[in-house]
């Protein structure tokens, strides 16, 4: 039996956009165990909620993460709205869906590009990110922000978008979807991609559920779990289905994200077609009191916001359980038995977002 050695992986590594450290216990080229550690970029944002005005905290909440900022802002706003009993106008709910899905598309495109870069397909990475830039231009035109959308506020959204601009956006999104379909053919059909991803980092269905995985990581193992089925925002008013794959390997996780991107495009078309008129915000009155758990689907999986108000302008407790944190135990299971050269790819397929995880 070969001697065991430990190879440190991260916190700085070419495949990692953010710092995550793994101690890889190796037997020759095979990983027998992985011990993760986080805590390199903890910023104490949860504590900040206890000293900030609850309305100001909305701006901080969406800065928890740079990639899924829109849905963080929405999660916080939805929680406070539930505590204060605010009814959000229908148009604001539809606009939240449009921006939330745009956020999902740009996040999936970002991830697909990073994955292409990690398996050594640099031109595919550039083509994917070129498409993402075009989407970000539309985000900037409609919300005013490119990375931090700044779209959500307590009681609704911060700006209305003219119907003409929404129609122009949908026309361009349709053209973008056709371009994405061409990229998808390479991601899903190319022999080099398949040989690098198929059968690698398999997470069986039972293990995925037992380890508490969420989002595309869980759905790629055949579990139909998606928080959008709760019907928050306007998700109960558009036609869609939870996307699952059965293989549970890295390739299945690529497939789930590609198919979800198409579905997000479709949801935006439906939402813009059904967009109701009217106001986009209702003014909050008073201060939040009570406890609430707000659950939403981030591009990476289910995010949980716990909010506790005591009737003053400061929250008593603010807690966020982010999807990457839930996916780290699943990652450890995926890594067991893989080759050292595959660690980077497998690690990326959970779409790690460490800024979210550490807050």
């Amino acid at each position, binding site marked *: 039996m070969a001697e065991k050695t430990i190879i440190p992986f991260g916190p700085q590594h070419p495949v990692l956009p953010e710092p995550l450290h793994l101690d890889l216990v190796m037997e020759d080229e095979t990983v027998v165990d992985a011990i993760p550690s986080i805590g390199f970029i903890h910023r104490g944002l949860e504590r900040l909620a206890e000293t900030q005005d609850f309305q100001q*905290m909305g*701006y901080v909440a969406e*800065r928890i993460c740079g990639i899924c900022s829109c849905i963080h802002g929405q999660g916080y706003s939805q929680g406070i709205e539930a505590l204060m009993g605010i009814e959000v106008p229908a148009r604001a709910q539809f606009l939240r869906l449009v921006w939330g899905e745009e956020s999902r598309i740009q996040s999936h495109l970002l991830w697909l590009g990073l994955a292409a870069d990690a398996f050594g397909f640099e*031109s595919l990475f550039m083509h994917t990110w070129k498409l993402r830039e075009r989407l970000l231009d539309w985000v*900037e035109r409609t919300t005013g*922000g490119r990375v*931090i959308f700044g779209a959500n506020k307590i009681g609704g959204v911060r700006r209305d978008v003219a119907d003409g601009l929404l129609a122009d956006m949908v026309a361009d999104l349709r053209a973008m979807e056709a371009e994405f379909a061409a990229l998808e053919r390479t991601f899903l*059909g190319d022999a*080099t991609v398949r040989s690098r991803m198929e059968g690698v980092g398999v997470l069986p269905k039972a293990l995925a559920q037992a380890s508490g995985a969420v989002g595309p990581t869980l759905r790629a193992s055949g579990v139909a779990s998606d928080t959008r089925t709760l019907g928050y925002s306007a998700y109960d008013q558009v036609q869609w289905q939870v996307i699952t794959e059965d293989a549970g390997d890295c390739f299945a996780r690529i497939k789930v994200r590609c198919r979800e991107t198409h579905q997000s495009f479709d949801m935006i078309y439906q939402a813009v077609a059904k967009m109701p008129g009217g106001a986009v915000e209702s003014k909050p009155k008073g201060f939040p009191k009570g406890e609430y758990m707000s659950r939403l689907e981030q591009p990476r999986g289910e995010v949980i916001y716990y909010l506790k108000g005591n009737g003053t302008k400061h929250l008593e407790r603010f807690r966020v359980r982010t999807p990457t944190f839930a996916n780290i135990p699943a990652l450890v299971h995926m890594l067991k038995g893989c080759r050292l050269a595959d660690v980077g790819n497998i690690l990326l397929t959970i779409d790690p977002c460490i800024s979210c995880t550490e807050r």
Partner: protein
Amino acid sequence: MAFGTFSLTALTSLFKKPATTTWPATPYVPVAGARGSLRFASETCNYCTLCALKCPTGAIQVDRVKKAWVLDRFKCIVCAACVDACVKNALACDPDFAAPSSDHVIEVYRVTESADLCAHGEGEA
């Protein structure tokens, strides 16, 4: 099949115009409505301090007595909370971004003057 796809993509890319812009020959056009940088108009401001109260990072300080409005751009996150709060429309967001800087400059606007730039620590608020 893969080889055909590669060749076709490479060939079409050769004859297409570049995906990137040739800055600075082609100037950058800011997107209308973007939250680029904060702009202050001292002539309409009534120094009510609402912007300073709403600012989540404490980037704005307002002195009602001296009629001075002070902005620390290193702290400003351009969230536009102050723009939403301002009742006199003295604050707005320019779509263009503020130029990058390594000098920590505190911008002090007084009622009679336009921007008065002071080095960090020397600014009168």
